């Protein structure tokens, strides 16, 4: 009896979480004047909103920009953060502990503190309106270093010693010996980095003004807020659907990894 109640509760909750997405897709495929009649399926099915969207804004280009930026940032974070994490976990050098405490300290700093000065930095570097502004500030982050450090601490010293005796230098140890046994950590850091970079919108809005350089969330945001959508709900929802699609597809394929990675990211406090 109690179980039955649980299922009803869960069912209602699942409906509340999934229904808005279903409505969004159906509404984006319905004629503008029929959108209020949409409950579950499209009413007066049409692809008009999508066709007009592609005619009006460079959304395909923005998709390519987003993939490009998120891929490079993710790759950079994996390489540079694992380097620092490895040194902090397995090397003894002057200032190591100081550096580690410093790392923990910078993790607590709110981004609001550096938003304005970082923008001015981009202006001084001449990086506004370029991918450099989207890529370089994201190439490393303290949380990724911490995850790598924790993971590398758990690796048996024998493995590293054996590699050193075989004449491996530190770079080969990290990338050819340690990386292959660190796949779960690489996936966790990779998913979190890719997702946060893909979804970020405040920073792109600040540093990018030219349409052909915009990432997908930025372009969709400005489209929905500005006059370009001409108040057309169908087109706004179509742009939102396209923006959601890549991440949802990735999520459906790698669901378990997504959930585990995000759970790990929540553990940082």
């Amino acid at each position, binding site marked *: 009896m109690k179980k039955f109640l649980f299922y009803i509760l*869960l069912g209602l909750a699942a409906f509340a979480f999934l229904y808005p997405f279903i409505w969004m897709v159906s509404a984006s495929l319905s004629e503008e004047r029929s959108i209020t009649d949409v409950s579950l399926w499209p009413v007066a099915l049409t692809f008009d909103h999508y066709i007009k969207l592609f005619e009006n804004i460079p959304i395909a280009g923005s998709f390519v920009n987003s993939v490009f930026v998120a891929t490079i940032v993710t790759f950079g974070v994996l390489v540079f953060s694992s380097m620092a994490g490895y040194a902090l976990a397995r090397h003894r050098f002057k200032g190591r502990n100081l550096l580690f405490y410093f790392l923990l300290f910078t993790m607590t700093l*709110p981004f*609001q503190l*550096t938003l304005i000065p970082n923008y001015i*930095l981009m202006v001084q570097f001449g990086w506004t309106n370029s991918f450099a502004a989207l890529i*370089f500030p994201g190439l490393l982050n303290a949380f990724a270093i911490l995850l790598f450090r924790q993971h590398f601490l758990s690796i048996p010293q024998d493995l590293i010693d054996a590699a050193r005796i075989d004449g491996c230098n530190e770079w080969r140890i990290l990338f050819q010996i340690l990386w292959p046994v660190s796949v779960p950590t690489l996936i966790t850091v990779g998913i979190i980095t890719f997702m946060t970079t893909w979804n970020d919108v*405040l920073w792109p809005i600040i540093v990018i003004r030219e349409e052909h350089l915009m990432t997908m969330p930025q372009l969709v945001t400005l489209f929905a807020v500005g006059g370009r959508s001409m108040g057309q709900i169908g087109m706004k929802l179509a742009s939102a659907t396209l*923006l959601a699609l890549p991440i949802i597809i990735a999520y459906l394929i790698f669901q378990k990894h997504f959930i585990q990675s*995000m759970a790990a990211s929540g553990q940082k406090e």
Partner: protein
Amino acid sequence: MRRNKTISSYLLVSPYLLHIFVFVLFPVGFSLYLSFHQWNIISPMEYVGLTNYEKVLQDQYFLKSLRNTLVFLAIHIPLQIGIALGLAVILNQKIWFRAFFRGAFFMPVVVSGVVVTILWQQLYGYEMGSINLFLMKLGFEKIGWLTDPQWAMPSIAIMATWKNVGLYIILFLVGLQSVPKSLYEASSLEGATRWQQFWHITLPVINPTMMMVMILSTIGGFSLFIEPYVMTGGGPLNSTLSAVLYIYKQGFFYYHMGYAATLGLLLALIILLVVFIQRMVIENKQP
């Protein structure tokens, strides 16, 4: 050999050192410097002493944005903890389709806030939004979710809960699964009710999770930007003006760089202080 290794140690951390210097240390120092100046990026910087700080203390908009954040947190945190904990407790039972339910609750977490905001803006529509149409079918009055100053911030808080709660369900689940089964069995033998078990065994164990949810939600509340930016522009009557939106407007609308940096600096201090107080209060409450 030894020396080579030391050199490689520093080489390994050198990208991090460079990055942290350029994008964290320098900006923090520079933002302090900026806070004593007036600057619109184009004309030369002008030293103004403590003027920016004096202005912040009397800035109605900044104070309003802090009050709005409080309204958001007062609704968002209890909702978030209540719903996440409730659903996590249910999901922690032997339940069919657990993976499906978990996956469904988690869906909004992975999607961009832009998607969620555009979507809910339509759901919240006054005349034709799905929620009001549904309320009218049930015989209730329409609500001005985003047009009534009383409702606009609570509406954003409800939406934010919908967006994030999946993550906290997972975190609570991790916490719940760390409770040793033997504790429940032993207490059952001594005649403890389910409710007593929850209160005296489960709750103390998931206390750290609770604190984490609270702190992450608080930081999230102080970071609101895209939601008011897309949905309301900070209105109606500035009732959804968030602190970050206000900094954005000062910095990139009016080009008051010195003043915007001062706002960012003080906001960061406020966040650190609030999180610190939350920690103190919760840790002192623990037995």
